[in-house]
């Protein structure tokens, strides 16, 4: 993968447009850096893990999270803001019989506010094209083998909603919320892993 830089020309174009906007006084480079830093400073899988751990220890919070993701985030001092407009968050819960996995087949939409920048494979054409057709096969390549009776739903983020998977709570004797959060992985929040 490291020999391919498909996004090279796009990155160059973006820098070119940014330079033009700055030259014409339409964009303040310092302001742009400040906005990006503020956005990314709080954006890491640790935020998504916090949300999940709270849902595991507090069933009422889990109910609110699944009903209205954005409102539940506010309870934890989190938000889906920071981009051009606040995005709608839809949390989808794994159960004993249902497994969820997220993708953006058209580009690379991802809940950056909660998970930080997406992994390279999430943006790859291989993942995007294959996970909608053969999720069980793709999950197996991640080392995730699901029992036959588990039904898989793939959520394609093709509009303004960002998806987050609520993994099943691991069967370990841990009840402390922070310790539970430490068990949550990025792939678990995307749905390519179970915990």
């Amino acid at each position, binding site marked *: 993968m490291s020999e391919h830089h498909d996004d090279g020309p796009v990155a160059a174009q973006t820098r070119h447009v940014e330079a033009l906007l700055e030259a014409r006084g339409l964009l303040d480079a310092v302001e742009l850096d400040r906005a990006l830093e503020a956005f990314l400073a709080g954006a890491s899988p640790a935020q998504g893990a916090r949300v999940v751990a709270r849902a595991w220890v507090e069933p009422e919070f889990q109910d609110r999270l699944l009903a209205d993701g954005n409102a539940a985030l506010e309870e934890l001092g989190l938000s889906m803001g920071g981009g051009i407009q606040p995005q*709608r968050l*839809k949390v989808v819960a794994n159960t004993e019989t249902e497994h969820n996995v997220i993708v953006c*087949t*058209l580009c690379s939409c991802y809940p950056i506010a909660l998970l930080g920048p997406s992994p390279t494979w999430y943006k790859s054409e291989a993942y995007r094209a294959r996970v*909608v*057709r*053969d*999720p*069980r096969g793709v999950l197996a390549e991640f080392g995730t083998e699901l029992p036959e009776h588990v*039904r*898989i*739903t*793939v*959520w*394609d*983020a*093709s*509009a*303004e*909603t960002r998806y987050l998977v609520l993994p099943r709570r691991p069967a370990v004797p841990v009840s402390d919320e922070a310790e539970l959060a430490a068990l949550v992985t990025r792939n678990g929040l995307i749905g390519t892993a179970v915990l």
Partner: protein
Amino acid sequence: MFSSGDRVRTSRADPAHHTRVPRYARGAVGSVVEPIGEHPLPDDRARGVTTVEPVYTVRFSARELFGEGDHDVTVDVWESHLESA
């Protein structure tokens, strides 16, 4: 306007301009999971026109989309791209 549970078919259109209906989901029948708010239609916005309309999460069976598979795929679709099925 559609409601949760409604059967819908996505547009088969293959326009020259930008569209948000993924190719694999064109002309497919699915059921509305839920309405998810109103947003500018990207097909129009890409051409400099702002048209705000409802967007729905629609659930399709893999068999409907690909002719095989035992899973489901959901796609978020603007109302212009849906008709009752």
